[in-house]
């Protein structure tokens, strides 16, 4: 933890922006550079920054949930998204798609099991990195 006023003030803004950006990267990942891995890394960077500026206990309080639990929930979501295909008779991890408001010209809003899988990846990466970083920082 550093006692730097500038870092302290800047972090408050940056964390929010990084989290927003990480979700943006996650959602656009299917068509443009981005995705769950990258999103998770960016999100984790935000909290790592926060931990440097405000300390670990403040970070844990801000997270509200243990980072290990976040990672485990993520793994569960990814698994559920994979198993979901089995209900439709497809092989495991086959993507299932639903297009809301589909018309002749426009595919509408796509919702897919693949998106949920990517959200799972995001949470695992996010949670795992924070698990290690926070444990290490508390150690020192």
């Amino acid at each position, binding site marked *: 933890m550093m006692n730097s006023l500038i870092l302290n003030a800047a972090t408050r803004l940056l964390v929010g922006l990084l989290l927003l950006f990480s979700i943006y990267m996650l959602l656009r990942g299917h068509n443009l550079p981005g995705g769950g891995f990258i999103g998770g890394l960016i999100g984790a960077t935000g909290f790592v920054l926060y931990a440097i500026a405000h300390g670990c206990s403040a970070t844990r309080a801000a997270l509200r949930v243990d980072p290990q639990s976040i990672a485990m929930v993520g793994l569960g979501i990814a698994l559920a998204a994979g198993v979901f295909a089995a209900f439709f008779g497809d092989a495991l991890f086959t993507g299932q798609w639903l297009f809301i408001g589909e018309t002749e010209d426009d595919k509408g809003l796509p919702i897919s099991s693949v998106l949920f899988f990517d959200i799972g990846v995001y949470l*695992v990466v996010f949670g795992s990195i924070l698990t*290690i970083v926070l444990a290490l920082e508390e150690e020192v």
Partner: protein
Amino acid sequence: MAEAGVEVPRAAGGPAGWISILIPVAIFAYLVQFVPQVAAGEVILWAYEWVPALDIRLSVILDGLSLTFALLISGIGALVTLYSSKYLGNHPEYPRFVLYLMAFMGGMLGLVLADNLIALFVFWEVTTISSYLLIGFNSDEAKSRRSALQALLVTGTGGLALLAGIIMLGNVAGSFELSVILTQGDMIRAHPLYVPIVILFLAGAFTKSAQFPFHFWLPNAMAAPTPVSAYLHSATMVKAGVFLMARMNPALGSTDLWFWTLVIAGGFTAVFASILAMRQTDIKQVLAYTTLMALGTLTLFIGAGTSDAIKGMMLFLVVHSLYKAALFLMIGIVDHATGTREAEVLRGLGRKMPITALAAVVAAVSMAGIPPLVGFIGKEFLYKAGLELDQGMIWVTGAAFAASALMFAVAGIVALRPFFGPLAETPKPAHEGPVFMLTGPLVLAGLSLFFGLFPDTIEAWLVAPGTWAVYGSPDVNVDLYLFEEVNAAFILSLITFATGAVIYAVHRPLRLFLARLFEANPIKFDPGWDGVLDGLKALAAWQTRHLQSGVLQRYLFVIFATLAVLSAITIWSRDVLAFDLDLGAELDGLLFKHWAVLVFVAAGSILTAFTSSRMTAIASLGVVGIGVALIFIMFSAPDVAITQLLVETLVVVLVAVAMLKLPRLEIMAGHRDKRPWHAVVAVSVGLVTTAILIAVLQGDIDRRLTDYFEVTSWPEAYGRNIVNVILVDFRALDTFGEIAVVMIAALAAYALLRGTYYGRPKDAREEDGQ
């Protein structure tokens, strides 16, 4: 719920008792109905597909051999469980004992009935493990634990050899089904892998059946409760090795290798064990060594391999199981009643324990091979088979004769002296055993007498079908009789009795003499075993000390040095460096931005290597990483570049945090001396990696997958970012595996950091300190 302090008296064994008795009885009754079919020469096959992809089937073969064994296992099993319910019924761990015993029985039945060799092996291991648990049942005694471990390691090692042999044989024969393999004997014997297969199978069989030089674990296994000794170490498990040899005889037998290995090992074990038996004073130990003798004799006659020898072997197998189980159970009763098993102490128990004495004498007479007990017929046919052998006649007959004569004397030691003569003082006053315990020895002794008087029954039911199965052909004359005429075998029997009687007369001086002889003998197997184990432990400690130093630097050094050496060997042996690379032309093609990145990366690397500050090192390593990310961007792999940048950032943060705890580079003793070596490894890894990358670029890159993903990404997976579509859709299962690994790594790191005292958070440490 039991009230505290109130002892509730329990019926013998409780529910565990009668359930354990009913199971073998039911199995026995079920199997008996197959006797007429099998006696008529039928072979019953039944199969269930277990792992069809690997050709592993749970299949059953019921022929004379397996039926004989299965009936012995379930029949003696029923008597032994009945006996145990009294013998161990009040033991607090009795249900655990029953569980082990049932597991063993299941394994043993599976082993003898299995038609698939893989299934046979699995059951083989089940018997090894349950035997370990049963020998070590009195786990609070160091001796029991040692004996159990010894049996497990010896038979387990043999089991591994057997597995290797099974896999080889399966490949040679093209099937793991015994019913298929046993018909291909000629092809297997001619195959170049025949010799290794035989060696591996015999390694399994000899360890399991305690043939010399693996004999030492069996007498030690007598640390087990007596019913276990009676069941596992005389009638069933130790015969698994004999069973395996008998089972494989049609496929592997009738070669010189098979003949001489079995005949020499079996004959030697038989004679050696009978002499060792004479040395013991503990009657249970005496019986243990006579079991070794019987196993040796069975091996000897399987090796001899003529139809008469096989017939004698099958008969002796049943004969031995009957009398030996009876005698073991008998000594258990005596031990229970008097508190001792010492041959020197026990005398004249016959008046106090008449029923036990009756069973003991009948069983011992069968063991001595005296008519009209079935033991006589067994011995007679062994002699007959031995005398008619073309090769090895003297050796086989001589070994059988020596073992039988000593057996005659042993029979006197275990059944004559303890029960006749003047009553001697025992630690506990002698009294007759309970009915449940007497049933076993009486039934078994009765069967010995019944089969002796009516040899046609055992011949038709068990011996004839068994002989067909082991000999591999049903054209064998199997005709058993108590007495035919005064022939060579009969005369040899008379000489056996005379010799045996003389040995019995002098057995006490002989015992003292043997004890002194073995005292002087420098080669001792049991202490030798300890030596082997100690050596193994020392080796493990030595290699752990050297390989697992706990110094991260050394681990990394070893890992990277191995990588460099193995890659260099591969590059050299595959001759991949035979490419023509026009370095000048390649360099001309580089633009200014490429040069800039190269300089950037090189400068970072050099600074990392030569700085004396950890902070500078880690920051300049970050510079290298960012340079690599720039390369990714130049060659249009934005996803990879972004990931690289983010990971690089996080690594710098992480390592910087860890670094605060580490000593400064200068203080680390000896660090400087090793740097030249580190430089060598680093440069080598760099060179081989470069060589591999150049070599890869020389060949044509297989674009089939790339093309497929490019074409199908949008129409089938609705995604334009191929990298991401591969990650979350085409290869989602791989990704799932990866994120699982990421999470496990995080949890492991967390556990490591928090698991140790110094790994605990500072505030918690301070609380501990106060």
